[in-house]
């Protein structure tokens, strides 16, 4: 188990090295001089030259990459070209927002997705099944942009039930310790602010969770149906076990393995920042930041951001793989002797 984890983590190094070369070359192959983009219409030759020198753009590419890599090895992601802030700080201030939203969205999606999947599998070919399948098809197909706007129009503008944008009412001053506002508000003993933060989370988490919910529901249903045809399930029925026990203990436990993979993957995607949801709900997360960095040709921010998010994605997948062992004792991770 331990060596498996080590091996997986070891694989991270070449993966990230490859990724760093890939992002570096992509960012530099994209047409458009970052200095020209930053200065816009008012670029004078002097200002352009000064900015290029300042950014190191006047150096050959291999030298730029070499500097970047040696910085990376020293644990330095560099500074954003646009803000001159450390890329690690830029991500650090925004990641809690993304994480909080992703976690809320995936919890919502997992709970309701698995429940819907079980329901559909149990009442296969019934009206419930058809409804879940159609609903999940709609969920996957729904343009998040429209769903978000509709949710805002209905719940914020018309009904005034929920706030419309942002993470917290700006008049609530809560000291930021962790950046996770649900935690910070509790640490500050401000229950009113906690409720405000939770209310701000509802719409974006719902909107962001729609697609994962649909995917999870379909996956759970398929896996359940698959498992339900197996011999040991028939045996369980034959033993006279209650439907509840057969489905929730015998079937679900095995059906959860592929479902968990899907949940883990979806969570990994969500951690990369939900660009559209973050944009609509003015959510100050990493996704929107990264997109703006791309359009500003802020290649240092892009490189650092992609690298960090990729690491996270790999780590999340690793954790999911490890969870297999917990869910299914047949899975042995020692490896090498299959």
């Amino acid at each position: 188990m331990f060596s498996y984890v080590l091996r997986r983590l070891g694989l991270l190094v070449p993966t990230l090295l490859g990724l760093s070369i890939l992002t570096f070359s992509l960012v530099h192959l994209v047409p458009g001089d970052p200095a020209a983009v930053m200065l816009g219409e008012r670029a004078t030759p002097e200002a352009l030259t000064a900015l290029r020198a300042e950014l190191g753009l006047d150096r050959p590419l291999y030298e730029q990459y070499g500097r970047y890599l040696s910085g990376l090895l020293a644990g330095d992601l560099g500074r954003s070209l646009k803000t001159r802030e450390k890329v690690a700080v830029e991500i650090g201030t925004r990641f809690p927002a993304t994480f909080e939203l992703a976690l809320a969205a995936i919890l919502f999606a997992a709970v309701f997705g698995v429940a819907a999947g079980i329901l559909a599998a149990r009442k296969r070919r019934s009206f419930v099944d058809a409804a879940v399948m159609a609903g999940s098809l709609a969920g996957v197909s729904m343009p998040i942009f429209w769903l978000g706007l509709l949710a805002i129009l209905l719940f914020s503008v018309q009904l005034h039930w929920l706030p419309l944008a942002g993470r917290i009412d700006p008049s609530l001053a809560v000291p930021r310790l962790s950046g996770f506002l649900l935690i910070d508000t509790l640490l500050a003993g401000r229950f009113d602010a906690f409720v405000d933060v939770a209310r701000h989370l509802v719409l974006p988490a719902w909107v962001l969770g729609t697609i994962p919910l649909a995917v999870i529901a379909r996956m759970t249903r398929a896996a359940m149906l698959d498992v339900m045809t197996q011999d040991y399930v028939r045996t369980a029925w034959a033993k006279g076990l209650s439907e509840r026990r057969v489905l929730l203990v015998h079937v679900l436990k095995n059906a959860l393995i592929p479902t968990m993979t899907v949940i883990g993957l979806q969570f990994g995607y969500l951690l990369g920042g939900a660009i559209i949801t973050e944009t609509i709900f003015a959510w100050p997360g990493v996704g929107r930041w990264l997109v703006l960095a791309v359009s500003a040709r802020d290649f240092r921010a892009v490189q650092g951001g992609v690298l960090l998010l990729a690491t996270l994605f790999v780590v999340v997948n690793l954790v999911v793989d490890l969870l297999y062992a917990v869910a299914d004792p047949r899975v042995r991770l020692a490896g090498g002797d299959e």
Partner: protein
Amino acid sequence: MIGVAARLRSLFLAALLVALPALAGCAKKDAAPAAGGGSTTPVAGGELVFGRGHDSVRLDPGHETDGESFKVMDNIFENLVAYADTTTEIVPELATRWEISADGLTYTFHLRPGVKFHDGTPLDAAAVLFSLDRQRAMTPPHPYHAVGGPYTYWQSMGMDDIVDGIRAAEDTTVVFTLKRRNTPFLANLAMGFASIVSPTAARKHGEDSFKFPTGTGPFRFVEWVKDDRIVLERNPGYWGAKPYLDRVVFRSIPENTVRLLALESGEIAGMDGINTDLAGRLERNPGFTLLKQPGMNVGYLAMNMEKPPFDKLEVRQALNHAIQREAIVKGLYGGYGTPAVNPMPPTLWGYNHSITGYAYDPAKAKELLAAAGLPNGFKTELWAMTGPRPYMPDPLKVAEAIQSDLKAVGIDATLKTLEWGTYLDQVQHGKHTMCLLGWTGDNGDPDNFLYVLLGKASTRLPAQNVAFYRSDEVDALLIEAQEETDVAKRAALYEEAQALIHRDAPWVPIAHMTQLVGFRRNVRGYPMHPTGKVRFRSVWIEPGA
């Protein structure tokens, strides 16, 4: 699958379009009542939340170039001189008065006594020197010249070619000596980059100064949550008329529609970056005020005079007669634009109002083409930006409209588009035949439009003068206007230059895009400024409304 998804999407689109006006009706009922009979005496107190599309990049005035940063800093920092509330006239701010020597080379500023920065540091000549000297290219360089990045605005406004030296004559007097006579220099000093910062704070925070903006302005900095909000509060020790608002919060809400909904639902009290297609919705709603003004910008079609047939005057005039700029502004600026006649907006002093512009007259255009020896027209390229710019909401559509207008007079123009950074680079190196481009003014001085965009010096590569218009006559007038210190005489020179430019027709001026700011009806006293500056000192909230 794909077919179903697309159908669902169109269904949703339809549903939303039906829902929008209906909900607008509801929002109207919820909105603050119109304060028709409201009081006109300002009241102190309250918090104003202002929504905008992006966060600030950084908050050190010397380094920044983006509008969203200056929007916040204009409330925190002040300059030696400032723009008047609603015009680009230069008025005293941290300097109570100044003298210009007879040769126009020495400017002596007398500082306002008793002014303190937000951190308690007194405003003195040393602070002015610190704020401006750090930006200059000097030998040896100022100790803070290399701190915090390049001083882009100082460089792009050519300040190193203008300023020879700055010295403190006494504690409260600062003397600038110039390398050459340059009157727009005074207007440059009113720009954001020339704001005076607390040297104490700058020394204390070094590279991180941009996170701790410390000026002398009516509001002081409280908090910045990246991509979310920047909070300012009233500066209790402000030297001038105290601001009315207790707090100002700048909130970033990137999606235009959502920002408008936030205004309608009361989450924010004011906003800018209003889509022209949504502006009407706000304008019709009695709970809100939509402020409009031609922006300090111009969008234009430049003809590269280095490339035939645009070296011929008749061809350039023909294009001016062939293009229906009124129709373009009406159709593609959503009515929120002013057809451009001159290269500068009519809100600036020195604008020549007697020029009426080339009338739309395709027959005349054909005549002119024939006179140029091109009775059957010609083939050419029309370059256009792919994305919206502050002076043109949809350049591609504008290009298509121009293309069809030109076709009507026999000119066959092929559209060419490039990614923005590349586009700018290619155009500034004169690779185009015709191109769309535009400009947003910096200092409110006509020089900043006419000399920058049409002066001979600006044809140097990478060129700002992308028509590559070289007129000795116009250049002489523009340089004389730079050296003249009398504003009335300068205005006359600029009017004359505009008449010559109009005759030579290096551009087809298209439009000045209207700047729009929206507020809830109870927000009073917002001074709309031609430069687009967002200043909240005089703003107050009408209670009970």
